[in-house]
């Protein structure tokens, strides 16, 4: 009986202690809201636009948004003073991209290099999350071009086609630094004598922000499967964002602006002065209200 009583007293004093503790903690806790669940978000804005420079970036045009692209490359520095070190020459590509649904975009364009038409898609398979459960974004990219230029010998329509396929794996490490690795395969239906139809490349792209609206970008695309005729593409430049525009100014040794061309048909090197100045202008237009698409999916 005494024991029983003791137990009861113990239980009761435990209760009192527990309530006293609760009372104190309720007063000490200044937040009425209590513990809020940690925010898990898809990581946005790893790059300012859908290209690092030439290389497709981990960004996808938002659903319902049209992005008008003007790309321009001058001639190479080593063409000499007679050509104003390349400024007399011009290569252009006009194109557009459209976000069909969240995570999927398509693009079309035409470039003066080989008078080629190009069409491509980019699909985000995995989107990096802020809790690092998905540490990287993974995207699939495919491009096909049709070279309309006159060849010096008879060619079929199939011969004029070339393709590029890429796997884009990228991570935004912090607010200012992003990086991506981009294995690529390029296929030309018609290759020059002695060259293989397929070439492989491993693109690497970087973005380091300088301010909220400007960044330095660089990309290196070593190419394999060529006998040395075709050179790796190296580009360095900066992104400047002004409202709806993104201006990308850069130096590059590629004059091609479609994926098979700048990866697989690049004959200049930095060492020999085959550097050219170029710029990309991107302007977005919203066609469809984003609320038409599912939340936070852009």
């Amino acid at each position, binding site marked *: 009986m005494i024991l029983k009583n003791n137990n009861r007293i113990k239980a009761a004093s435990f209760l009192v202690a527990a309530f006293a503790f609760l009372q104190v903690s309720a007063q000490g806790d200044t937040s009425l809201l209590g513990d809020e669940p940690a*925010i898990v978000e898809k990581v*946005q804005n790893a790059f300012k636009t859908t290209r690092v420079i030439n290389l497709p970036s981990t960004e996808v045009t938002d659903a319902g*948004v049209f992005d008008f692209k003007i790309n321009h490359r001058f001639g190479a520095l080593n063409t000499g003073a007679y050509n104003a070190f390349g400024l007399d020459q011009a290569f252009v590509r006009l194109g557009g991209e459209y976000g069909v649904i969240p995570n999927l975009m398509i693009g079309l364009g035409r470039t003066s290099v080989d008078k080629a038409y190009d069409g491509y898609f980019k699909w985000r398979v995995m989107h990096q999350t802020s809790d690092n459960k998905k540490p990287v974004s993974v995207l699939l990219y495919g491009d096909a071009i049709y070279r309309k230029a006159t060849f010096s010998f008879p060619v079929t329509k199939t011969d004029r086609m070339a393709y590029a396929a890429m796997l884009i794996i990228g991570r935004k490490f912090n*607010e200012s630094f992003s990086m991506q690795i981009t294995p690529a395969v390029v296929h030309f239906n018609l290759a020059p004598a002695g060259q293989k139809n397929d070439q492989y490349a491993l693109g690497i792209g970087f973005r380091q922000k300088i301010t909220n609206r400007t960044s330095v970008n660089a990309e290196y695309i070593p190419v394999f499967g060529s006998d040395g005729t075709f050179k790796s593409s190296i580009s360095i430049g900066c992104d400047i*964002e002004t409202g709806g525009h993104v201006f990308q100014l850069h130096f590059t040794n590629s004059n091609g602006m479609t994926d098979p061309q700048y990866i697989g048909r690049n004959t200049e090197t930095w060492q020999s002065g085959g550097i050219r100045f170029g710029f990309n202008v991107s302007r977005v237009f919203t066609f469809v209200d*984003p609320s038409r698409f599912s939340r936070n999916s852009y």
Partner: protein
Amino acid sequence: MKKIILVSALAFIVLSAFKAGNVYKTSTGVIKFFSHTNMEDIDATNNQVAAALASSTGTVEFSVTINSFQFKKALMQKHFQENYMESGKFPKSTFKGTIADNSKVKYDVNGTYTVSIKGKLTMHGVTKDVTVPGKITVAGNKITLESDKDKFKVKLKDYNIKVPAQNAANVSEDISISVNCALTKK
């Protein structure tokens, strides 16, 4: 002895219930903001606002996730997050305050009461004292907090939010904020 302990325990329970009063909460409150210039009207809505109110003290708290604001244009939303609010550095905005005239609000009588809430608004890493005029509507277990949209305005420069000269014509210096949160008794 036993009785004393039990009585004191009971007293604690009653006391704590009395002292804390009722707490009303929501996690789906709505906050909108508006920027009006001759060039452009910008508005965004966040319908995932966490809010709480303790009726006995009139203490009010809000927590707003910056990236949950939805815009009519995706690019605006990106610029808002990355360039203006810098949500990577400052993911949340909070408000902690008290109802200045809490005694006149009868939480057990249905009705609408015009009040003003004084407190500290933290946004973009800057904390400022603000007074928010608005009204409280009591309907059973539900309390609705509504701000007076025309009177609750914040200045961007107070919170160190910079608008570049080229966008100054499109983004207003004074941003109107409207709050509409329906809280339920917890």
